């Protein structure tokens, strides 16, 4: 009986590899207006309530959940590094100012490190979110493996 050829499930390899990645590479900008729908969708996906972010709770105005944009490392690195199916090693976040619903924000980043540990290849990206006044509101630092 003929055996059907199996399609191997392998991580994507279309983009530049970890070997091509340069420390100091600057990425972004991404620009968003933070909408009530973004907050509602984020809270629904966690899932959590939205009340801590409502006007009058943590701030006079409605605020964005502080981690809503943490996954922006993916679009920031899109076309710069094939992320593969690696795992996250570490993430840190500094909240310098709240981001308010209705704010327009800009996200930019820079590769600050790449290293090899136990046969896996890691990268580190620092990325920050600025508001329309140019204030840095969020500072993120993330390290992930690509394999």
């Amino acid at each position, binding site marked *: 009986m003929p055996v059907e050829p199996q399609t*191997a499930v392998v991580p994507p390899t279309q983009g530049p590899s970890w070997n091509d990645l340069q420390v100091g590479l600057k990425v972004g900008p991404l620009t968003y207006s933070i909408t009530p729908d973004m907050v509602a969708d984020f809270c629904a996906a966690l899932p959590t309530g939205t009340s*801590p972010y409502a006007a009058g709770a943590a701030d006079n105005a409605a605020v964005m959940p502080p981690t*809503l944009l943490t996954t922006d490392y993916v*679009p920031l690195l899109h076309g710069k590094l094939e992320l593969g199916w690696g*795992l996250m090693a570490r993430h840190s976040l*500094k909240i310098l100012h709240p981001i308010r619903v209705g704010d327009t924000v800009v996200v930019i980043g820079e590769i600050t490190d790449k290293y090899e540990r136990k046969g896996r290849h890691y990268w580190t990206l620092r990325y920050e979110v600025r508001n329309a006044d140019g204030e840095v509101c969020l500072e993120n630092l993330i390290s992930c493996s690509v*394999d």
Partner: protein
Amino acid sequence: MSQEAIDAFGALLGKRAPQLKREPGTGHHSDPEAAKSVGLRGPVAYSLHYYAHVAHLMTERFGARFVNGGEMAVSFIKPVCAGDDVRIAIGERPVQRVEQLAHGRDVLQVDIYNQLGELVAAGSVSMASAPTAAR
């Protein structure tokens, strides 16, 4: 952490960044075969998903003190896979790494456990110390 919850979290990014052309149901977060091909026992949850719950709990508990100067740092130790339960413990035990202590800040240990009681992620959260009441 159900597969449905993992997919819902992953879909957020696809909606915000359509240029990524993400295909739902593929990759090691959704496809069991893809996950196994990279040594995982099943589709893996997004670490930033349960990390977001830490931030949510902190915002819920501390409000303005956290969204105005809060910090968090978490190391991810073991993967969380679809079907696993996670329990987030904030301040249940003392801060484990003294370098995370900072003058003028209240620092709390964060531990995330799976259903077997294994530590899957750990770190700290902090915010400026609350002003002391005037005497």
